[in-house]
């Protein structure tokens, strides 16, 4: 399937609206009393869930592009990644607001005391440079090679995010969802390892043939 540039920008617009839906749903529910008995918990969990979903979706772009031979998919990746950051920022904001009422000192004490929060916090902090260097201008300034290296941080971020989720669910002794998300992330990362090994082998062959 190939899409011309116009179709691609249409698709991008559709994806933008779809990606915004979870947020709009939250806003709608806030004003219609649709968040259940503990709305603040609902918002915290919901934004956390969507952060993980968007990390998975973003990490799926490259494998899908290769497996389905859809080079133009790459053009959607930045937007999807930034939506991941958007939900992560909302998630962090709910933590700072609802759990600590903007008491940053207290929030930091909580962060260092509790590994489960610390892991999530580190993941969020690591997302910041990625979001900040997402513009074309920044890519040029950083340099494509270094930019790519920097953005490989997303692999670590996804792993930390899954760990954070796993730890949080440990309290409920309910690992079905963390295992599902963890497996998806693991598969997406493993594919990259396999491809990188394959590439190295074929490069070695090439250089062996050349000599």
């Amino acid at each position, binding site marked *: 399937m190939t899409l011309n540039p116009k179709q691609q920008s249409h698709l991008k617009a559709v994806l933008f609206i779809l990606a915004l839906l979870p947020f709009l749903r939250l806003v709608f529910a806030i004003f219609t009393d649709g968040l259940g008995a503990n709305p603040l918990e609902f918002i915290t969990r919901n934004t956390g869930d969507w952060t993980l979903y968007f990390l998975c979706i973003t990490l799926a772009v490259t494998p899908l592009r290769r497996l389905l031979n859809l080079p133009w998919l790459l053009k959607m990746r930045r937007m999807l990644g930034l939506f991941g950051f958007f939900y992560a920022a909302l998630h962090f904001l709910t933590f700072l607001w609802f759990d600590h009422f903007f008491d940053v000192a207290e929030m930091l004490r909580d962060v260092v005391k509790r590994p489960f929060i610390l892991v999530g916090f580190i993941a969020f902090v690591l997302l910041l440079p990625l979001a900040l260097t997402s513009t074309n201008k920044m890519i040029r300034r950083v340099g494509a090679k270094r930019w790519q290296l920097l953005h490989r941080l997303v692999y670590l971020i996804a792993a930390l995010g899954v760990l954070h989720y796993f730890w949080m669910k440990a309290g*409920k002794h309910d690992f079905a969802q963390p295992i599902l998300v963890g497996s998806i992330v693991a598969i997406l990362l493993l594919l990259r390892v396999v491809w990188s090994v394959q590439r190295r082998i074929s490069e070695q062959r090439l250089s062996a043939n050349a000599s």
Partner: protein
Amino acid sequence: MLIKRQSGNIILPSEITPREFVEARRHFIKQIAVGAAGSAGLIEMANRAAFAQDSGARKLPATANSNYVLMENKTSYKDATTYNNYYEFGTSKSDPAQTAGGLKTRPWTVSIEGEVNRPMKLDLDALMKIAPMEERIYRLRCVEGWSMVIPWTGYALSNLIKKVEPNSNAKYVEFTTLADKSQMPGLAYDVLNWPYMEGLRIDEAMHPLAFLTFGMYGQVLPNQNGAPLRIALPWKYGFKSAKAIVRIRFTSTQPKTAWNQAAPREYGFYSNVNPDVDHPRWSQATERRIGEDGFFAKKRKTLMFNGYNEVAGLYSGMDLRKYF
């Protein structure tokens, strides 16, 4: 007169929602549900809330115990019956209200056994006649950091304990709760060791605050809240209060309890509400009162023993950091 508000936990009389308002609100929810009954699914939430109320609408008369009245707003019936931790019916807090409706609570027999002179099997009617029904308004503090205020109906657990005459070996009381796969969809997942077990030291169980509960909000307990009988232990985290009890056993050794077995570092046998002993993954210093502490409120401070200092004597000389 100087009215000084000392902390977020003290509520001025002027802040309490008048009873008529609360009742009008419940009536309103019911009305909506009746209207929505024709257009099924449209206002599903309201419908469900009213269903939960109607299915347990059998009144349970009781005399209010004036020793256990709080100057705090009661949690709304809707919140108290749709936001429940009851893993036998699913791990999500909205699950029990949706899946517990079919639980058969009659006939129901509780076997009382172990280190007692008079072991007995009692059916629900016999149990309900052991002592006069009273209503007590208790705070409920969940280990997860939220709280409610609930009017329970029942009688002090000590009434039942005296009846079976524990012998001198009886040091602990163990509660076994129903585990019936055909009625409880949550049992398909081994998130905990089923059946759910809880336990108390016998002096804790004999404490006047320990309450054997058959109803709430003047009605028979809804299934999702532990029907047909549960205990209410307001100075302990909510999970200590076993629901749908089928066996009460008196033992000489400390009973194994469900959450302690699942995560001994996180949930102790005692699990008294204690703002100074954090859960490993979150602070217990503060809590959010369901239905009240909204977006623009700082969480309220959690009180030692959830504000029930009369139990302090039970633990004198004990290191409550060690025996958490």
